[in-house]
């Protein structure tokens, strides 16, 4: 998409003289870019809390018996760790930070379709997040149900379940509104010439995600609402003591929460699809297949929730169907992995930090995915369900996948957002720490899980200690790397060297506007004439897609 950079230098979005002044310039803004930044700061804050809890979990597991905290505290810590990481960090992170900021620019729009609704989403997010944290300190004690809130424990325990599920409910609302906003934006606000198949893959993945957000989130909303009502008013819905069925709760919970893992994953996959071609300086391999596979993941992802209930006592036909579909949903992921790898072929590759994270994403997500396949197989999952193996699986996909995707996005786009570059050497050192620490922390979990170490265990048998020690030491390296990375990014954004509009040589629309972007994004409405990844300006030959 060849464009002239906007000639007239409008003030960028960070330096305009806004309608509201002081703090109101942020809290009352409807500029999608500022809202994106507000998400960045708030998510980072909650993320720090989540890391703290995760760190404490690992510390406690260093030795059998008590190391630093008591069992009740441990139980609330893993619950809050799960709730914060899932609902407050990885679900909103990519869409709300980078999606908000770049989706409108990438499709050539001035803002999202409902700017004020967008601001409302942020407020809901903050209220929900605060409520989750406040529940820590309310009388009754922090919630200790696990992030899954399984019935009947969640109606039995005396801890603050109601504040926690209200928090999740509100966060769900926020997520739904973001989804509604993005779908409408993509349908109605694409620039002239920006056809569906000229749209970059990041908007594509956000589009697929948005549908999952819109159609699946209400299920968890209502389910948790009912748990709350059941707790407060003793209405009989799920509680076995009142005749309810504990498995029904699980069905409804996972009906949302499995699709949710693809809400977590898809946007990060979109990031990877952006990063790889830019640093390989060539068009992406199999554009349409990647685009369609996002939709396929979103659709098939809605059909497989039962694989979390293989030991719960489902009917054999359900077991068969859910296991079978779990394998089918893995196909589109496989397609993406192969296309990304193929995109490196005959490129002109610069191994910059974003690409490092992107490649780390592909590898670690694949490991997570492979272990997903193993537990998708019925007999294996019977053995591994609720063991440390599962913990390993989901940290690999969510952190090795989405987490690394977020880091890739941060190193790729933050310079655009703030107009400055971080220190690349430090970034690489931090990357090395993170990768090593990550694998040390989570790989032992596969081993001990297979040996029979259950999850959500405060205490454990002595034969597992060696794995726990490795894992805990790994978490120290991991957190050290993380701190290094964040500090480096923050310093870079404050005082790093300035960068021009297109530091990486990208082709999507966001690189055609000044850095940082002006308030209205585009001086003139852009007119798109080519596909999103048109690298012909670097290449000598272009090979059209070979059709059978």
């Amino acid at each position, binding site marked *: 998409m060849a464009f002239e950079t906007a000639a007239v230098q409008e003030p960028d979005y960070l330096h305009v003289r806004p309608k509201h002044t002081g703090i109101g310039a942020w809290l009352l803004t409807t500029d999608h870019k500022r809202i994106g930044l507000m998400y960045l700061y708030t998510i980072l804050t909650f993320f720090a809390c989540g890391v703290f809890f995760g760190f404490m979990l690992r510390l406690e597991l260093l030795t059998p018996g008590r190391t630093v905290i008591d069992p009740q505290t441990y139980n609330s810590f893993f619950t809050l760790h799960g709730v914060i990481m899932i609902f407050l960090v990885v679900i909103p992170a990519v869409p709300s930070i980078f999606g908000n900021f770049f989706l409108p620019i990438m499709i050539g729009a001035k803002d999202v379709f409902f700017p004020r609704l967008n601001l409302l989403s942020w407020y809901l997010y903050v209220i929900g997040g605060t409520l989750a944290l406040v529940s820590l300190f309310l009388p009754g004690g922090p919630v200790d149900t696990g992030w899954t809130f399984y019935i009947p424990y969640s109606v039995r325990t005396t801890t603050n379940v109601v504040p926690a599920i209200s928090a999740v409910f509100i966060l769900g609302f926020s997520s739904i509104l973001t989804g509604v906003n993005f779908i409408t934006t993509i349908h109605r606000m694409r620039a002239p010439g920006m056809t569906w198949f000229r749209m970059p893959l990041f908007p594509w993945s956000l589009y697929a995600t948005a549908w999952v957000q819109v159609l699946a989130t209400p*299920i968890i909303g209502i389910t948790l609402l009912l748990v709350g009502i059941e707790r407060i008013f003793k209405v009989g819905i799920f509680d076995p003591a009142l005749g309810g069925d504990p498995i*029904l709760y699980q069905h409804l919970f996972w009906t949302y929460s499995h699709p949710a893992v693809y809400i977590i994953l898809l946007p990060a996959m979109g990031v990877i699809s952006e990063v790889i071609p830019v640093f390989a300086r060539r068009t992406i391999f199999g554009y349409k297949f990647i685009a369609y596979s996002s939709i396929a993941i979103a659709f098939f992802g809605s059909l497989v929730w039962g694989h979390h209930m293989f030991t719960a006592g489902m009917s054999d036909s359900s077991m068969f169907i859910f296991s079978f579909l779990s394998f089918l949903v893995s196909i589109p992921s496989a397609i993406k992995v192969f296309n990304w790898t193929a995109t490196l072929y005959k490129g002109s590759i610069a191994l910059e930090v974003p690409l490092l994270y992107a490649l780390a994403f592909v590898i670690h997500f694949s490991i997570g995915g492979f272990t997903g396949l193993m537990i998708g197989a019925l007999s294996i999952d019977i053995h591994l369900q609720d063991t440390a193996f599962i913990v390993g699986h989901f940290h690999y996909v969510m952190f090795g996948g989405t987490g690394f995707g977020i880091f890739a996005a941060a190193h790729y786009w933050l310079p655009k957002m703030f107009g400055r570059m971080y220190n690349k050497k430090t970034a690489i050192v931090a990357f090395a720490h993170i990768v090593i620490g990550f694998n040390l922390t989570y790989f032992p979990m596969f081993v001990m899980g297979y040996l029979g170490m259950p999850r959500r265990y405060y205490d454990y048998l002595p034969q597992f200690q060696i794995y726990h020690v490795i894992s805990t030491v790994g978490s120290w390296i991991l957190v050290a790397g993380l701190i290094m990375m964040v500090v480096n990014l923050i310093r870079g954004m404050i005082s790093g060297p300035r960068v021009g509009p297109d530091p990486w040589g990208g082709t999507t629309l966001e690189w055609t506007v000044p850095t940082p972007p002006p308030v209205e994004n585009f001086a003139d409405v852009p007119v798109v004439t080519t596909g999103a990844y048109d690298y012909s300006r670097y290449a000598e030959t272009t090979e059209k897609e070979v059709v059978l």
Partner: protein
Amino acid sequence: MNGTIEVQAVPLHRDDEGSRMGMWLFLFTELILFGGMFIIYAVYRFSHPAEFHLAAQELDTSVGMINTIILLTSSMTMAMAITAIQKKDKILSMALVSATLVLAFAFLVNKFFEWSTKFSHGIYPGSTELMGKPPGEVLYFGLYFVMTGLHALHVMIGMGLLAVNLAFIKRGIVTWDKSVKLETAGLYWHLVDLIWIFLFPLFYLIH
């Protein structure tokens, strides 16, 4: 917030179809919210058919039917209010929106008496009377209370939206060529009706 000095907050172009699209998407989430409860209903009705049958005898079909008619009528007046405003008949439109509000209120009053009768018969969540019943009936009434209760909550939200729109019409914010706010509020109102269309047979008509 814009450029150098001062520009309006929200960009610029107007796209009513897009606004309606947003509203529809939101309605799907509402639909699925209630859908979740219909799933629970389906499972429990399947596993406790006889008890559901028995419990349903406690509900008064005629009350349910009256409420159905009230809501259907209110949906019609709502739809007509939009036609009226589009035909530049501001007064008629306001009258029709008001009629919708009155009907909505009647629905709630009706619901209130229905619930109070249940309560006075000792049927309310956690009551000893209810707890003495077999599990299927406890579940039936649990669902009855949460589903009609949540529906009533939606009626109230809908009333709020309509009231605001009434003011909009009066003040000329909603006019014949800028009616999308009223239209989206109308969409919301019809959804409330739509859900009731399913609630009615499922709770009142199990014979």
